[in-house]
């Protein structure tokens, strides 16, 4: 009897790809037997060998699924920022992130078959503020009060996970704090931001940003499923880019907006261009955030393939060039 992996949130592209990847691994002769995907809505694409169960993780149904399938590894990928054009929008995001995580953990605590929990968290847990150190390590305490939005969701969800680890010390828990994924294949906050023809920025601020390539994200996730890698790890591409640098590389003009009331004005501009700036980006576009991935190398044992710059270049070559690409953009 092989292992059974449950993946939550498979209606979203990264989770769907990961579930498919696991199913391929299962066919390829690893000890993984079956991959079960779960979400409230059916996935838009083909899931391959993944068994899809339409269920809401905010309800106790998920416990039944675990019991029936005898799941031993749970991959929680349902912790996502709210974004237009996806299934997670507005107030529903908090419901899904916080209540969903609580229910899932409650189900895991009951289920005797569960041996491992892998959580796709986010570097948003560190926030973004002028009091931040240049690079966050996994032990950095978040600065500034947590007010609202996705960051609060992540902080609360990670708090529940810590509580869960105390109650079930026998379960291996891997928390992967992933930087912003940038890819033309995956819907992401920065992907939505860069879609705009002109990029609203905060006047007088040029944040440092880090990206994560989807391939690295999938590799880290599957490594933590296949092998045992307990702990909390930052996952990001090496190096940083400045926001102004990314705009120049894309050949897109920027509109500097005053810091006061930036969120509302920027969202309005972006919507008029047919794209969106998710509210989670507002503070990030002002102060930026960089994480230290030393633990990922030294303890987890994974060397990211793509640097931040390479990730951005891969993205840039897939998307339509910007307005200024003709006169000065990179080939």
């Amino acid at each position, binding site marked *: 009897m092989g292992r059974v992996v449950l993946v939550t949130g498979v209606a979203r592209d990264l989770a769907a790809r990961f579930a498919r990847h696991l199913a391929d691994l299962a066919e390829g002769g690893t000890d993984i037997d079956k991959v079960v995907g779960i979400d409230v809505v059916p996935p838009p694409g083909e899931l391959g060998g993944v068994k899809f169960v339409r269920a809401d993780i905010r309800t106790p149904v998920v416990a039944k699924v675990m019991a029936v399938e005898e799941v031993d590894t749970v991959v929680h990928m349902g912790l996502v920022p709210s974004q237009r054009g996806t299934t997670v929008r507005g107030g529903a995001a908090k419901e899904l992130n916080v209540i969903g995580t609580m229910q899932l953990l409650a189900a895991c605590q009951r289920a005797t078959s569960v041996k491992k929990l892998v959580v796709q968290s986010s570097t948003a847990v560190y926030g973004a503020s*002028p*009091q*931040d*150190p*240049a*690079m966050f*390590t996994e032990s*950095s305490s978040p600065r500034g009060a947590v007010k609202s939005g996705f960051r609060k969701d992540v902080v609360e969800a990670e708090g529940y996970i810590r509580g869960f680890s105390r109650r079930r010390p026998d379960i291996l828990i891997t928390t992967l704090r992933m930087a912003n994924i940038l890819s033309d294949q995956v819907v992401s906050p920065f992907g939505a931001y860069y879609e705009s023809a002109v990029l609203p920025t*905060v*006047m*007088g*601020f*040029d944040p*440092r940003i880090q990206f994560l390539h989807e391939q690295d994200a999938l590799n880290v996730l599957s490594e933590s499923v296949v092998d045992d890698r307990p702990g909390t790890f930052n996952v990001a591409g090496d*190096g*940083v*880019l*400045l926001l*102004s*640098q*990314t*705009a*120049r*590389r894309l050949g897109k003009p920027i509109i500097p907006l005053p*810091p006061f009331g930036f969120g509302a004005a920027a969202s309005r501009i972006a919507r008029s261009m047919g794209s969106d700036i998710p509210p989670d980006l507002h503070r990030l576009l002002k*102060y*930026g955030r*960089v994480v230290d991935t030393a633990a990922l190398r030294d303890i987890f044992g994974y060397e990211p393939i793509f640097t931040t710059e390479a990730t951005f270049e891969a993205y840039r070559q897939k998307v339509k060039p910007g307005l200024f690409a003709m006169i*000065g*953009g*990179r080939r």
Partner: protein
Amino acid sequence: MSDEGFPMNNVPIGTRGKAGRGNATVSPSAAARSLAGGSAAPKKPVKKANAGAPAKNPPQQGGPRTTAKRAAKKPRTASAASKVAATKNPPQAGGVPTAGQTNAPRLRAVTEADAQAAATAAAATSAKRTRTATAAPLAAGIPLDEIFSAVLQGAQRVLGDDWEGRLAAILSTIRRRVTGDFDVDEFGFDEHITDIGIAAIEPLAEKWFRLEVRGEENIPQDGGALLVANHSGTIPIDGLMAGYAVRKYSGRHLRPLGADLVFSMPFVGQMARKFGATLACAEDAERLLTTGEIAGVWPEGFKGIGKPFVERYKLQRFGRGGFVSSAVRAGVPIVPVSIVGAEEIYPLVGNVPSLARLLGFPYLPITPFFPLLGPLGLIPLPSKWIIEFGEPIRTDAFPPEAADDPMLLFNVTDQVRETIQQTLYKLLVDRGNAFF
């Protein structure tokens, strides 16, 4: 129109009313005009002679202003214009009450003779101005070859003999900046921009502040080091100068550690990061020091930089000694840096604490010139500066657990502080007058 301001010529065209009666404001009376007429009279024949058309325009006809003006507005070259003026003049001459010879036309048609005279005069002056007199016939056109050779000479003078290569390098640099093809490190440090900034403040340091650097051999040539300096001057220009001195005398970059206020301010925070600054916190300090960078710290913080002028060169409390703990953990030497001269650039004589609190600043300075002269008050006073890098204090002899020994940290902090204070006194005596 050559004699502007002369009373007679200020009579507006088309003033109606009887000639000879001035209205006391714009047109002078006849008496006034006749008084002035004496000097005006000799000018007219000269103008007439220049006009070169005395036969067509008899002097007695006088040229009523309306027609003269109309003629002047007509195409200048055409002799037809003067013909029109000539034919139209006789019927109107009697009708318009003019003041005889004093009413000679100020405006007249420009004739071909005029144009020729002007052309020859222009040619003569241009021939005089251009060095080569033979080039005079060409002066009317654009001397493309001369401009080209001037540009080449200018490029050679500015960029040196290999100006082609340097120009290409500059252009490629600009292209890389525009296309975003440059690297910054994790702290946001942009080496290229920093070197440009250091070149930009060189005149300020060398000519304005007459910066003198002592003990530059104490800056470590390699490996991490923590530079600890006194802080003063209302605006942290001493940080810029220390960075300049370190870059100039050791070729390395100083990575300043700044307060979080710096990074919350628009433009300032952005530039600070690009110039290599980062937040003054234990994590960043240790990260910089363990990677072998020279970090600079000003432990007095706002207490030092915002202290009143009467307390100049009196060191404030040196924070909580966190910098020593970072240096001990990283095992790097502490270099005490004494900066003399920064206190006088903006003598802080007053403070508005309530307004400062409202705006979220630690202090709101009043200097003898600042709010009084507006932006001019932001020019730093040209005090004379001395920066002395002191003997490094080694910390690698301490065991790692010493970083958590408060008594040892306080002792080292005091040692650094006393060293800087004594050096400041010595440098002040050496410097003498603050400005000369």
